[in-house]
């Protein structure tokens, strides 16, 4: 066990995977000599050489297109997109090619590329360094999409991604790269304790990030990524008001853990779904619909969404825009007292 932050956990996973398999390649803008703008790939080029840790030209479509070609041929390519805001030049390669390769070839051409990219706001990045694009990828069949919230899951899910026969997008919560809350680092968090060796976290399984105490009105929160920490904070505050939160960290957005979602929703009958992305057709809309479809008779209150607003991501007013613990708390109160 070591104490790691998410960056270190990702870096550690990549070191393990590259050491274990000569056919693992890392590519992206500034990932090599520099070690990535967030330092997630530091040391890899020194350890594994320029042929396997590639500083690419500045073209996301080329990064993903080439990674696809490598994967078709038999190399496991781990592509970094520097910020998920810059993934859109590669959108066609991802949604029309990567997602559909296995299917359109009748199963002849699996294409297990791994794409890592930092998502989300809270780092004073304005609208081009803050977006949360998950719903734009899960809408296209064929992509596995995971969204870890902590170092343990970040490493375990990345190692699962590397072993997956499917293309996997790992959406890394950049706001909590170095600590789970503004200023607080991962040292004191149980999920900051990370085994140094190989292990995996299964894709498709949610985790209970906070259990019910039995004390107060039970409410479910369904969320993922950096918002898990915002919701933890809200849950702690809510507890003092007699609201007892079961916090489900979805972790895997596609496939999703319907069993865990339904179990919690049926248990509490009161559900808040939180995501940072804009509301309109965001991931929370899907989860809200699923809960409605599977748990209608159990619902004591409308499923309530806490999301980003339907505007581009602002700079100065970022913390007015970002869904914060206070907004989650308001939703918890509404849901807990409904009826």
């Amino acid at each position, binding site marked *: 066990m070591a104490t790691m932050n998410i960056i270190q956990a990702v870096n550690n996973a990549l070191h393990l995977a590259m050491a274990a398999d000569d056919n693992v390649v890392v590519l992206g803008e500034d990932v090599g000599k520099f070690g990535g703008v967030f330092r997630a790939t530091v040391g890899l080029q020194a350890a594994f050489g320029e042929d396997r840790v590639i500083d690419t030209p500045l073209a996301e479509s080329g990064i993903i297109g080439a990674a696809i070609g490598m994967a078709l041929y038999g190399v496991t390519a781990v592509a970094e997109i520097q910020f998920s805001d810059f993934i859109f030049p590669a959108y066609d390669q991802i949604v029309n090619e990567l997602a559909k390769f296995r*299917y359109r070839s009748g199963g*002849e051409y699996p294409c297990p590329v791994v794409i890592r990219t930092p998502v989300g706001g809270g780092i004073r990045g304005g609208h081009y360094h803050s977006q949360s694009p998950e719903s734009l990828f899960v809408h296209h069949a064929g992509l596995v999409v995971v969204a870890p919230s902590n170092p343990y899951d970040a490493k375990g899910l990345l190692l699962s991604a590397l072993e997956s026969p499917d293309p996997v997008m790992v959406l890394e919560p950049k706001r909590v790269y170095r600590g789970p809350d503004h200023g607080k680092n991962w040292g004191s968090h149980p999920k900051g304790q990370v085994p140094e060796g190989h292990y995996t976290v299964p894709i498709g399984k949610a985790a209970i990030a906070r259990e019910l105490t039995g004390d107060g009105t039970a409410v479910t929160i369904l969320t993922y990524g950096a918002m898990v920490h915002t919701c933890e904070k809200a849950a702690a505050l809510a507890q003092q008001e007699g609201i007892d939160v079961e916090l489900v960290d979805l972790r895997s957005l596609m496939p999703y853990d319907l069993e865990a979602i339904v179990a919690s929703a049926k248990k509490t009958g009161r559900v808040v779904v939180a995501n940072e992305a804009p509301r309109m057709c965001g991931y929370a809309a899907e989860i809200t619909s699923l809960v409605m479809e599977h748990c209608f008779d159990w619902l004591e209150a409308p499923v309530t969404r806490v999301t980003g607003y339907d505007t581009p991501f602002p700079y100065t007013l970022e913390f007015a825009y970002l869904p914060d613990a206070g907004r989650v708390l308001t939703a918890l109160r509404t849901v807990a007292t409904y009826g």
Partner: protein
Amino acid sequence: MSSAAHTLPTVSTLQSAPTVSTELLQVMAPDGSVVDAAFIATIPEADLIRLYEAMLAQRVYDDRMIKMQRQGRLGFYLACTGEEACSYGPAYALEARDWFYPAYREPGIALWRGMPFQAWVDNMVGNCDDPAKGRQMPVHWTARAQNIVSISSPVGTQIPQCTGSAYAAKLMGHDAVSICFFGEGTSSEGDFHVGLNFAGVWKSPAIFFCRNNGYAISTPFEKTTAAAHIVLRAHGYGIRGVLVDGNDVLAVIKAVRDAADWARAGNGPTLIEAKTYRIAAHSTSDDPSSYRSREEEALWAELCPLKRLRAYLETKGLWDETKEQACVDTSSARIIAALTIAESKPHPALDTVFDDVFAERPAHLDAQLNAMTAHVASGESDYRAG
């Protein structure tokens, strides 16, 4: 390179960029007379005959398929008429271990490299034996056993993919090149630029084969680019560039062989531009009469790659009208028989809709499959099993 270069430390020190040639490479003149006897001598006569037979057969398949489509027996078809040399040539020139990324106009790559003929026809119908499981439109086949990558409709996406495969082969120490085919229209997409530039930096053992057939659907070459030739773009990526007569199958073979040798020797990619002409319509959805002249079509019909090779073979006494007719008849019978068989096969099973989305079917797709099965069974579905 420039008079003041000494003042600029980071100006690249690259001394000699690979050659970009705009001399049109020919081995045979349009009348079949020999331009490069030395090269012809390297190709066994039996192979020349096989190549001609294959291209002629392709012409027959294309003609028949277009007719069948008009009769409603096919949903869609797209011919390579006039451009046969651009798929049979490269297919002949490369090795079994090499990788191919065809666009939609290179059936010769499939058929020459040994994709089973019936499977190719099954793809046109999308039946249960279609290797693509009836998931894509006709002409979007896949042939893993032949190292031919599944065809996509979006154009240009294949180019950086080819760069990646070529790099992977090099990394794994394989002596394999990857070749990608696309039209001159497609060369306007961003992915063209990105794919060739990456390949230049990585010295990927790749061949980028641009079939310049004069049109992108209705859009003529002069509206595609102001450059005189696509091959001039090789300058901008520091890679080798070759202009070849795309209606001269032997010149195409030579261009691809040279490019493969260059790549295998570790020198990186080549951009080949093959000048040719799309004699047929873009596809069965198109009618070219409104956007190009009969005169132009007639001019190019004369330059047809089949005519040229046939003229050469006839001069050598290797071909005649009887052989021609026999080949046409056999090919015609072959395609009609295969299509009849293809039509007799059932649709892919319902669950194929939900297979291969992922390696394993996740729970939500199990549920959707059940729903679809129940709906079709209810008789209230628009779908009628075929």
